[in-house]
C-alpha cells in the first residue's frame, strides 16, 4: 500500500480500484448496493437511489461545456444507469479565493439550464471559500437523489451468452476535448466534450425495450475499463469488434499523435448497454431517435459465461485481451 495519494489514484483505472479496495471497502464494507453507480436505498417510499460525485475538471471551461454542466450531467447519468428517475440534486461549492464571480455566474447558469433539460431540481447547496492556493479555482460536490422504477432496473444476473453490447455513440470525445482545452499539447482540435444528461434516452429505452441486462456510463477509464469491470463483477467474457466501435476521425487522429488509446479515454455523454440479442435492433432504433444517440452501434457480445475477460477482435482476425486502464498519465477530466 502506498504511503501518499498520487495523481494516478484518480484516473479511474487499476490504482483507483486498489485504493477503493484497500481503504474504503475495508472501512465501509462493500454491500450489494455499492456495486452500481448509485446506491439503492430500500425501505423508503418508492425505493430511492442516491449517488455522490465530485468535480475537479481542469480547465473549468472547455468546448462543449464547463464544470457546472458536467456536475449535473455526471450526477444525472449515475442515477439513470441504475434505472432511477433523477429527481433532486444538491451542490456544494469549494471556491478558491480570487475566483471570478462572473465565471461562477456562468457556471451556475449552466447548471440551471442542464438541470431543466434533465428535469431535475437543484434543492440544496453549500459554499465554502478557501485561501488562494488551497484549491484550483472551483470544485463542486453533488449528491443526486432519484426515484427507482423497479420495472426499469437492470438485471445483470440475467446476462447470457449471445447478449449484445451497445454503445450510444462515439468514444473518447470528452477526453480529447479536455486534452485540447488544456492547450498543453499544441493540439489543433476543436473536438467538443460530449457531456450530456442521458436520462431521457435511458427512459425511452427502458420504456420501449425493458429488460436491459446492464447499463453503465463509461467515464474515467473509458469504455475498456468500464467493460472490464462488468466482466469481472459478473464473470462474463465479452468480445468487442474493433471496427464496430464508433470513433470520430479527429479523436482517433489526436490519439494517434499523443499515443493515447481512445478505448481508455473518458466519455461524459455515452452509455453502454447490454441487452438480449433479440432486442438489439429495436434498442438501436430507439437510441438513435435521441439526439445523444445518433451514432449508436452494436459493438460486441457476451461470448461466454466463464472467466471474466474483455476481448477485442481486430479487423484482420487477431484477438487481444483488454485490461483496466493502467499507468496512463491523464489530466483531470471530471
Amino acid at each position, binding site marked *: 500500500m502506498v504511503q*501518499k495519494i498520487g495523481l494516478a489514484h484518480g484516473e479511474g483505472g487499476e490504482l483507483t480500484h486498489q485504493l477503493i479496495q484497500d481503504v474504503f471497502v475495508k472501512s465501509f464494507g462493500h454491500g450489494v448496493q455499492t456495486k452500481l453507480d448509485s446506491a439503492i436505498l430500500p425501505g423508503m417510499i418508492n425505493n430511492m437511489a442516491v449517488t455522490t460525485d465530485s468535480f475537479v475538471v481542469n480547465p473549468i471551461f472547455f468546448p462543449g461545456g464547463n464544470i457546472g454542466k458536467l456536475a449535473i450531467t455526471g450526477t444525472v447519468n449515475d442515477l439513470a444507469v441504475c434505472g432511477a428517475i433523477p429527481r433532486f440534486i444538491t451542490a456544494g461549492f469549494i471556491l478558491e479565493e480570487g475566483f471570478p464571480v462572473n465565471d461562477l455566474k456562468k457556471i451556475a447558469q449552466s447548471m440551471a439550464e442542464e438541470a431543466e433539460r434533465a428535469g431535475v431540481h437543484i434543492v440544496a447547496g453549500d459554499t465554502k471559500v478557501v485561501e488562494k492556493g488551497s484549491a484550483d479555482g472551483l470544485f463542486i460536490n453533488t449528491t443526486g437523489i432519484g426515484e427507482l422504477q423497479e420495472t426499469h432496473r437492470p438485471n445483470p444476473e440475467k446476462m447470457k451468452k449471445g447478449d449484445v453490447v451497445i454503445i450510444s455513440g462515439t468514444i473518447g470525445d470528452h477526453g480529447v476535448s479536455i486534452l485540447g482545452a488544456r492547450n498543453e499539447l499544441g493540439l489543433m482540435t476543436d473536438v467538443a466534450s460530449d457531456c450530456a444528461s442521458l436520462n431521457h434516452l435511458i427512459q425511452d429505452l427502458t420504456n420501449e425495450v425493458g429488460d436491459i441486462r446492464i447499463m453503465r456510463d463509461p467515464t474515467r477509464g473509458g469504455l475498456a475499463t468500464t467493460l472490464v469491470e462488468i466482466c469481472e463483477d459478473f464473470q462474463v467474457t465479452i468480445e468487442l469488434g474493433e*471496427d464496430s466501435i464508433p470513433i470520430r476521425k479527429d479523436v482517433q487522429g489526436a490519439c494517434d499523435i499523443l499515443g493515447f488509446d481512445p478505448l481508455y479515454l473518458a466519455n461524459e455523454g455515452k452509455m453502454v448497454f447490454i441487452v438480449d440479442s433479440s432486442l438489439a435492433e429495436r434498442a438501436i432504433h430507439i437510441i438513435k431517435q435521441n439526439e445523444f444517440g445518433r451514432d449508436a452501434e452494436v459493438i460486441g457480445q457476451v461470448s461466454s459465461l466463464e472467466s471474466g*475477460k474483455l476481448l477485442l477482435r481486430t479487423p*484482420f482476425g487477431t*484477438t487481444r485481451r483488454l485490461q483496466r486502464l*493502467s499507468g496512463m498519465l491523464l489530466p483531470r477530466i471530471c
Partner: protein
Amino acid sequence: MESLETLSDPALARQSLEAVVELAGEFKKKFGRVPVLMEVCGSHTMAFAKSGLKTRLKDHVRLIAGPGCPVCVTDQKSIDAMIQLAEGSNRILCTFGDMMRVPGSKVSLMNSKTDGKDIRVIYSPLDSVKIAEENPDKEVILLGIGFETTIPILTLAIREAERKELKNYSVWMTTKLVEPVMRALLDSGEVKLDGFILPGHVSVVLGKKSFDFLVEDYQISGVITGFEPVQLLSGIYKLLELLLENKFDVLNDYPSVVKDEGNLTAQKLLKQYLRLHDEDWRGMGTIPGSGLVLKEEYAQFDAKKRYEVSVGEPRKTKCRCGEIIRGLINPESCVLFNKGCTPAHPIGPCMVSTEGTCAAHYQYMRGE
C-alpha cells in the same frame, strides 16, 4: 504517399497476414525452425502487441523486442541521478511523461512530485524553454532522454534557449544511439537472430544508409518498417523473402517518410551541438560512442556540468529488464512480472514506459 485508410484496410491486413503465415511455413520447411526477428523500436513492440499480431504469429514467427525503448535502456544509476536532480531547491524539472513513474533505487519522480517538488510533464522539449522563460528566478532542467528520433528536438530546444539567451536553462543529456547498441548485441552473440525489423522513426532522421552496416559487417538483413498492421506485416514478409532467397539486404519499406540520406537538417543539428560519448546502458554496461552529449562550447546548457549529483550503487532487485531489452527472455520469465511488478507498482522501467516490452505484454498479452 500511402493513405492511412489503405494501411488500416482490414481486407488488406487479412491478406497480408495469410501471406506472412504461408511464407513463414516455407521458412520452417526449409530450415526446420521458425524465423527469429527482432524489432529495435519500442513503438514497434507496442504496435505488435496492440494489434494482436505478436500473439497471432507466435507459432510462425518469433518476434523479439530489442533495446528500443529509451526509458528502458537507461541505466539505473542515471535514473537515480535524475531523481536526485529533482531534490535540489529552486528547480523546475521538465520531463516526458514516461519518466515520471520509473522507479529509482528509493523513489520515483512521481513520488518527488507528490512530495511537492516542481516536476512538470512536457510533450515537446520546446515547452521546457517556455517554462524557463516564464520562470526566470528558477533553474529549469530538461531530462534529455531518447534515441535519434528525439535528439534533434532536444537540440532545437537548446538552440531556442541560446537564441533567447536564457541563463536558467539546461538539459541533462542521457541520449542513446541505435547503431552502437545493435552492434553490441550482434557482437555479444547472446541472441541468435535471422533479421531486424528496423525502426521507422529513427530511420527518418538517419536514413536507410545508416543501417547498411548490418549487411557489410554482419551479413544480416533488416527492413525499415512503418507502424500500422499492414506495414508491420509487409516488413516481416520482405524479411522472410530475403531469408528464403539466402540474400542479405537492408530494405526501406517505409519510403513515404524514410529517405536514403535521412533528414540532413536534423543531422546537421546533431553535429553542431553534440559529440559522441561512452554511454551506460541497462543490462549492457558501457558501450563506447553510444550516446551524445553537449559539446564543450555549449557547457552552459549542460546540466551535468552545472549540477553536482552523487548516487551510490543502485538497489538490487530481482528485476530482469536488463535481459528483456537484450531479447534474452520474455517478460513472463521474470519472477516479478504481474506479481511484484505491474504498471501501477512498477519495479523495472520496461513496465513503466509506454514503449516498454513488459508494459506491452501486461497491457495487451497478459493472461493469454
